[in-house]
């Protein structure tokens, strides 16, 4: 077992490239790519897990290409994104999974609490169009900086900033509409 594996940063382990180091990276980040695919593309869990599996294989095969110039997480997500676009491009467009878009239910919580509840927050985000939802996910959940998101999505940084702002604006407007009497 590589002695330094468990104590190093992601970028160091990825540049080292040994199997043990990659195993540590896998343990740290597994599940994240599947969740990204589910949230960004509203795919079902099975497809998302398969895409993550393929992405990990590709990441390991091409670990020598990671130069450390961007966060490892961003590099990993770029691979997952590429896999997801390839897979989902050919798949029949399916309706979003039911468990991601729950129907409105009468809530016993008062309006302020309902607004803040996690499920409600997730519903607000998932109602965004894809081109706003994806950068929002990358920023809020994976903590990627706008320039890393821009690099990953192959967009100008100003476009990414604009989309993040529009996502927040849309979320705030939706949230206000639900709170209004």
């Amino acid at each position, binding site marked *: 077992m590589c002695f330094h594996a468990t104590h190093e940063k992601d970028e160091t382990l990825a540049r080292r490239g040994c199997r043990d180091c990659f195993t540590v990276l896998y343990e740290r980040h597994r599940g994240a790519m599947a969740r990204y695919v589910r949230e960004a593309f509203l795919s079902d869990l099975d497809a998302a897990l398969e895409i993550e599996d393929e992405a990990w294989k590709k990441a390991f095969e091409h670990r020598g290409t990671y130069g450390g110039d961007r966060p490892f997480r961003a590099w990993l997500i770029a691979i997952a994104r590429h896999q997801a676009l390839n897979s989902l491009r050919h798949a029949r467009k399916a309706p979003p999974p039911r468990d991601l878009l729950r129907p409105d239910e009468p809530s016993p919580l008062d309006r302020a609490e309902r607004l803040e509840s*996690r499920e409600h927050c*997730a519903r607000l985000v998932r109602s965004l169009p894809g081109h706003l939802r994806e950068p929002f996910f990358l920023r*809020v959940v994976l903590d990627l900086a706008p320039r890393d998101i821009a690099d990953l999505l192959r967009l100008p940084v100003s476009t990414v900033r604009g989309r993040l702002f529009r996502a927040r604006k849309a979320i705030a407007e939706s949230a206000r509409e639900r709170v209004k009497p």
Partner: protein
Amino acid sequence: MKCPEAQREVSALLDGEGDRSGPLSAHLHECEDCREFERLSVGVAEGYRHEVRSGIVALRRLERPRRRGRPALAAALLLLAIVSGLSIREPLPATTVVSLPAEAEAPLVSRTDLGLPLTLVSDAPALPPVGLDAPLSEWMRTLPIRLSEDPPAVPALSAEESS
């Protein structure tokens, strides 16, 4: 400073850019709409982050859902393996050793009845005889250690079991 500009600056702040400058701070102090925009942006992001990250934790604990057809195929292969006696056998007990103790005896009369070789391997101790009515797992213990030897015939079902 007007609201659209103030809200863009709030958004930039949330992305780790810019600073809470004098004009922005003064505007937020006076404008309830922009304060609410900031509060909702932070609150919803926080709620969404928690929801998704707890989903990632749940995913890591999740037993992988099987692909369609795989369970049936796996079951068919397993059954085939059991019937042919080629690859499935329980681990041998600890007493299975390479060297033959001096006092061990080779012949297994009941095993001859089943058509089994007299000894499994020349350097293994004798295993207890297994009757035709033994359960499958017990019968599987009698499988030869060396794959080059012929496996035993599958014991026939008794009249009770076949009815």
